[in-house]
């Protein structure tokens, strides 16, 4: 459950919470720490993405990695993009892309939605299984016409890894695969309750 905090957190507390994979947000006028999955459930406000981008990212994440929507791929990516580049835990930070990373995501999501509109006169998030998979396959192979984002196979690779991070990179994700997490230092809670 979200843990209410009585006072506005300091920058260090926010950084620390972010470092633990938590989001620090205002809900109902109270500062709270949420794990990405909790933020997803609570419909927490997003710092970076527009509602359209958010819908596209969540849908793409879920189609690439089933379960990642519920695991919180959207608030996870949104929060990490809002963090300072040196605090960012997204894989993109060591894939040779200059920070800030938001334009990479924004243009990629926009290009995917534009491709869905061009082919099917529908936002990507509302596509049925078959046309969505067809678009993703074309994106993965760099075969989408008029693609106006980062190289589409690379965008696919990055988004797929973000979704895998949220789905499989947590204690809960390891457990779902039957892999003992065996931490020296645990990432507190699913992603973490501040203790």
């Amino acid at each position, binding site marked *: 459950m979200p843990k209410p905090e009585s006072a506005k957190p300091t920058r260090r507390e926010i950084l620390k919470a972010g470092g633990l994979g938590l989001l620090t947000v205002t809900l109902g006028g109270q500062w709270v720490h949420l794990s990405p999955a909790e933020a997803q459930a609570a419909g927490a406000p997003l710092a970076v993405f527009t509602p359209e981008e958010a819908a596209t990212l969540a849908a793409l994440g879920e189609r690439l990695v089933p379960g990642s929507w519920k695991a919180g791929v959207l608030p996870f990516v949104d929060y990490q993009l809002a963090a300072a580049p040196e605090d960012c835990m997204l894989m993109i930070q060591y894939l040779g892309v200059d920070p800030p990373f938001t334009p990479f995501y924004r243009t990629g999501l926009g290009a995917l939605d534009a491709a869905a509109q061009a082919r099917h006169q529908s936002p990507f998030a509302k596509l049925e299984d078959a046309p969505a998979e067809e678009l993703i396959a074309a994106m993965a192979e760099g075969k989408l016409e008029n693609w106006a984002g980062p190289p589409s196979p690379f965008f696919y690779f990055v988004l797929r890894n973000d979704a895998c991070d949220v789905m499989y990179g947590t204690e809960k994700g390891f457990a779902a695969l039957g892999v003992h997490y*065996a931490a*020296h230092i*645990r990432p507190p809670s699913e992603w973490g309750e501040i203790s």
Partner: protein
Amino acid sequence: MSELPNEKIDAVIVGSGAAGSHFAARLAQAGKRVAILEAGPARPKDELVSSMLWARRLKGGGAPVLETGKGTVGNGFNAGRGVGGSTMHHYAVWPRLHENDFRVKSLYGRSRDWPIAYADLQPYYDRVQEECGISGDHLAETTRPPGSPYPMPPVPVSVQGRVVAQGFAAMGMKVSPIPLAVNSRSYKGRPSCLWDGWCDAGCPIGALANAQTIHLPQAEAAGATIHPDTEVVRVLTSADGKRVTGVEAMTKDGRRVRVMADVVVVAAFTIQSPRLLLASATPQHPEGLANSSGNLGRFVTTHGAAPIFGLHPKVTTPAFGAFGGQLLNQEHYDDKNAHASSGAFGSYQWMIANALKPNGLLGIAPTRPDLRGPALTKFMEQASEHMITMTGVTEDEALAENRITLSPRKDALGVPLASVDYTPAKASMALWDAAIAEGLEVFRAAGTSEAWNAPRAPMHIMGGTVMGTSATDSVTNSYGQTHDLPNLFVGGAGLFPTSGGVNPTFTVHALAARSSEYLVKNWDSVIG
């Protein structure tokens, strides 16, 4: 955190990784006043959270490195940011270079020669090995050059290691325990490894030899000071341009400070060290410091990683063990022309049975980027129980045109960004192809139901500040002392004239041990 020194000190060291920490320990223990300036933040051990996401904070960061060639060197993945540098996320695979690695030009007419032979470095390998601890078996590792026995027994071998070993055996090839600077038993007050496979996230228990485990504590105990979040932007020189006098740095709170010293050691990793020297140009050194040869920034190499994956009928529990692997094969290492018929040149080795976590760039999920949706779910369930892997470390021919230069773009502190123009030699690409073909054959022989590989990826970065015998074609002498400025030293894998086909950190330490010993013995003449 210590205050930066106000008065002139004996030595200022740029960077707190393998080379910088080693220099700092030896100089401070010799009674020198030493300060280490580290661009990145402090990395307290209790923040080394076991997570492939947290692990990313230890890498890259800092000013972007631009890449303009057909290949990449992957600074973001290979570099380290924070106290301890890249050693904080290194996997401590510590093989030695071989005798032929030091004479590639003489023996084969390609790449370069080192200004020293294996025999010159052997005593320092032995000394570092005793100090830091290596687990291994020097007799079983029949390809290892001469030297002392490893001080600790080999690391344990799991089902994953055993099945890959069977594949090698079926092809008539031998494996040995891999030499790892990871404790297989307690060593010099540091505990044994638990083999839970979190090396990439930094080792909070001190079982893995890195800068924070070994040399930074020694340096501090001997009086050296470490200054995180202090980014050196310029190496300063005397008015006549004949000596370096210290460094200029920016602190995190935006102060521009100077630390003056009799000796400057630049050990800021392979890309940032030449960047700093190039950006420190003066009227007397218009092309950058220590660049009268014109070779500063040149001969950049990177090992082409050759990752092999397979699914095996046995349960292999790949999440555990050491990230660096359990076993080693250097079958063809000593014949750099073993694959010449396909145009390949160079040596390579296999690091066998690396720990594999489900996520992360070196984890299970990215190995099959073609899988998504329910097929990915099924694969993840199967692979997290049955996957096996090994990684080839393939040599890269040293080419003058593979170089680091300054970009017209500047970072927030006004220092030009480094730009790397790197395109691997055809012979290096062919060597990678040969290694991949062999690796897949080994995995099929091991009884995998499926075997596949990842694309060539840059692993380790070397060159750019190469050592040599002549001031006309190299940046430093064999001690890392620059030919042009006698009190300016360079540390790190940037000194390597050739890459070899083994992991560089052990050699970085051996060179730093030799350089720092020379510096202490010749202090008066060095500082002039």
